[in-house]
C-alpha cells in the first residue's frame, strides 16, 4: 500500500514541478513593433495570424513556424504573387487551405474572422494598420495583441525592428538576429560603396509597375517602396513631386520630358495579366525580355536616354519591401555605379539567401536588362 502511495506521491510531485516550470515558460513578453508600439504578448505563441510579408515570416520562423499559423490575408500573397504562393504551398502543408481574414485594400478585412480564429498574436503591415481604425479596436478589445511590421517604408530601422519583433514573438531570436545583421551589413555595404564612388549619382531613374502592359501607365512610387529605394541609392526619382500620394501613375508626357537615364519596369508572376512584365520563379530571360520589349516601343520612348543607352530593366516587384530587398538595391546600384559594384552579384546573393533561409528553391529571372 505504502509503496503504491509513494509512487503516486512522486508522480504527483513531478507533475506539480512540471506544471510549475511550464508556468514559468508561459511568460508575458513585451515586444516593440516596427512603429514603436510596445505590445505585451504571452509567449510562446501557439496561434498566429499573418497579414503580409510572408516570406519574411518564413525566413525568421522557418517552415516550422507555419504550423502555428491559423489564418492569413490571402489576397496580398495568393492574389498578388500567385506563382510564389504556389511554390510555398507545395512545401508548407497548411498553406493552401489557410482561412482568409480579408484584405484592407479590398475592403473585406474582417475583424470578426480574426477574433473567431482565436490567435495569440496578429501580425499586420503598417498600411493595413493605418486603414483599420474600427477593426483594430474590435480585435484589441477581444484581447488579441496586434504587432505592426513595416518593410514598405524601406527604412533600415524598420526592417530591423520588424525582423527582430517577429523573432522575439516566434521564439526564433537567434535566427532573427542573424537575418537582421545580414540585412544591415548588406545595406550599409551598398551605401558605403556609393559613398566611395563619389556620392549620389543624380542620374534620373523612372520606375513603373508593369502589370497592365505598355498601353496603360502603371503606378510609380515616391517616398515609399521603389521611390524610397531610389532616393536611398542617390538617384533622382522621376516620380518625386509628380504624385498626389505615395504611389500613382505619372503623366506619360512628364516622363518623356524628364528624359530618364535608367528605367526599371517592375514585373511579377501575375495570372490573368497577359501584357504584364513577367519575372519570378518561372520566368526565363527570354520570357522576361519578350514581355519587356513592348515598353521600349512606347510612343516617344525611342528618344529617351535610357532606351538609347540600353538601360531598360525588368525587376521583380516582389523584391521590394522585403528582407531581401538588398539584392534589388544591389542590382539598381550596379546600374547606377557600374565601377563601384563590379564585384557584386545580386543574383548570387539572392540564390544564397534562398538556400540559407527559404524552404523554396531558387530559380527563374528576377532582375534583367532588356538588351543582353
Amino acid at each position, binding site marked *: 500500500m505504502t509503496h503504491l502511495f509513494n509512487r503516486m506521491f512522486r508522480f504527483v510531485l513531478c507533475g506539480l514541478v512540471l506544471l510549475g516550470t511550464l508556468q514559468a515558460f508561459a511568460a508575458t513578453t513585451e515586444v516593440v513593433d516596427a512603429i514603436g508600439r510596445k505590445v505585451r504578448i504571452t509567449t510562446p505563441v501557439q496561434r498566429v495570424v499573418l497579414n503580409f510579408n510572408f516570406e519574411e515570416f518564413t525566413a525568421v520562423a522557418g517552415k516550422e513556424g507555419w504550423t502555428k499559423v491559423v489564418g492569413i490575408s490571402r489576397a496580398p500573397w495568393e492574389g498578388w504573387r500567385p506563382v510564389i504562393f504556389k511554390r510555398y504551398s507545395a512545401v508548407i502543408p497548411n498553406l493552401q487551405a489557410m482561412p482568409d481574414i480579408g484584405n484592407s485594400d479590398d*475592403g473585406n478585412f474582417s475583424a470578426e474572422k480574426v477574433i473567431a480564429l482565436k490567435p495569440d498574436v496578429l501580425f499586420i503591415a503598417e498600411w493595413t494598420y493605418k486603414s483599420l481604425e474600427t477593426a483594430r479596436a474590435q480585435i484589441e478589445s477581444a484581447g488579441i495583441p496586434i504587432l505592426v511590421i513595416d518593410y514598405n517604408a524601406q527604412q533600415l530601422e524598420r526592417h530591423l525592428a520588424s525582423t527582430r519583433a517577429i523573432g522575439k514573438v516566434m521564439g526564433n531570436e537567434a535566427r532573427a538576429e542573424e537575418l537582421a545583421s545580414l540585412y544591415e551589413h548588406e545595406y550599409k555595404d551598398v551605401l558605403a560603396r556609393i559613398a566611395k564612388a563619389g556620392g549620389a549619382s543624380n542620374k534620373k531613374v523612372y520606375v513603373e509597375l508593369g502589370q497592365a502592359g505598355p498601353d496603360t501607365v502603371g503606378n510609380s512610387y515616391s517616398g515609399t517602396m521603389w521611390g524610397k529605394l531610389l532616393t536611398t541609392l542617390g538617384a533622382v526619382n522621376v516620380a518625386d513631386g509628380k504624385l498626389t500620394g505615395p504611389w500613382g501613375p505619372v503623366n506619360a508626357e512628364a516622363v518623356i520630358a524628364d528624359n530618364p537615364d535608367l528605367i526599371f519596369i517592375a514585373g511579377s508572376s501575375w495570372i490573368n495579366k497577359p501584357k504584364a512584365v513577367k519575372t519570378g520563379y518561372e520566368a526565363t530571360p527570354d520570357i522576361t525580355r519578350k514581355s519587356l520589349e513592348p515598353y521600349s516601343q512606347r510612343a516617344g520612348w525611342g528618344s529617351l536616354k535610357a532606351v538609347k543607352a540600353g538601360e531598360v530593366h525588368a525587376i521583380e516587384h516582389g523584391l521590394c519591401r522585403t528582407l531581401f530587398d538588398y539584392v534589388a538595391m544591389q542590382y539598381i546600384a550596379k546600374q547606377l555605379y557600374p565601377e563601384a559594384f563590379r564585384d557584386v552579384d545580386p543574383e548570387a546573393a539572392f540564390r544564397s539567401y534562398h538556400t540559407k533561409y527559404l524552404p523554396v528553391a531558387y530559380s527563374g529571372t528576377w532582375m534583367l536588362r532588356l538588351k543582353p
Partner: protein
Amino acid sequence: MTLVTDAVTQEYQRAAHQRSRVLVAAGLALLLGVLLDAATGPAFLPIGQVAQAVWGEAQDASVHAIVWAIRLPVALTAVAVGAALGLSGAIMQTILNNPLASSYTLGISAGAGFGASLAIVLGIALPLPESYAIAANAILFAALTCAGVYWIGGARAASAEGLILAGIALLFLFQALLSGLQMIASPESLQQVVFWLFGSLQKSTWPKLAAVVAVLLLCVPFLVRDLWNLTAMKLGDARAAALGVDVRALRLRSFVLISMLTGVAVAFVGTIGFVGLVAPHLSRMLVGEDQRGFLPTSALLGSLLLSLASVASKTIKPGAVIPIGIVTALIGVPFFMWMVVRHRRSYW
C-alpha cells in the same frame, strides 16, 4: 360625453387599430431582424452561442468579443440609422408634398458625401480624431446643403417646388464636385472615398451608435409638437395656412430636423439610398397620412428595411460582407419600378 357610434367613430377606431397592428407587427419583425443580424457574420457562429453571448454568458471570450464588439453595434446601428433615414424621408415628403423627395434626391446625402470626401482626400476637416472628423464633416455639409436648399429655393416664399428644384440643383453640384475630388485623389484616398460612398455598417461602434440615438431622441419632442401641423401640410400650403399653420416656420423647423437626421445617419455609415424613399411609401400604404401613425411607422419600417438589408449583405455571399448601400439599391430599384407601374390610381 357619450360616444356616437357611427361612421366617424367606426372609421377612427379602424384607423387607430390599423396603426397599432402595423406598429406591433413591424416591431416584432424588427426584433427578428435584429436577432438575425446579430446571428449572421463571416465567423459563422452557431445561434446558440450568439444567444448565450447576448445574455452575457458567453462560453468563449472570442464569441463574446465578436457579439458585443462587432455584431451588436452593427445590428443596433442598422436600427438607428434606418429609423433616422425613414423618418427624415417621411418628413421631407410631407413638407415638400412630393413622393420623390428624400435626402438622396434633394442632394443632402450628396452634400454629406462630399463633405466626408473632402476630409478623406484633402484632409480639410475639423480637428478631431480621424473617424470622427469625417463624420463631423459629413454632418456639417448635410447642414450646409439643407441651408442651401432652403436659401436657393426661396426662403421667403419657401414653396415646395422651389425647394425641390434647389435640391436637385445641389445634388448635381455635389456630384460634380465629388467627381472632381475623385480625380485628384491619391489611389488610397480614392479607395476610401469609394468605400464610404458604398455605405457600410461594419464600422459601427457603441459611441457612434449613441450619437445617432441621441439625435433621434432629440428630434422626437419637436416632431410630437408638430404632428397635426404636418398632417395639415398634406392639404397644400394654402389650406394649411388657412388652418393657422405657419407654413414657412414649419418648413424651416422641419428642414433643421431633416438635416440633423440625415447628417448623423450618413456621417457614420456613408451614403445609403432608397431607405428614405421606400420606408415612407410603405408606411403610407399601411397606415395612411395621419402623421401620428405615419411618422413612427416610417421610422420603424426604415429600421426593418436596413436590418434586413444588413442580414442580406452578410448572407448573399457567405463569408463576405457586401456593402449595404448596394443591397438597399438592389431592393429599392425594383420597388421603385413596381410603385410607378402599379399606382395608376394615385394614392398620393
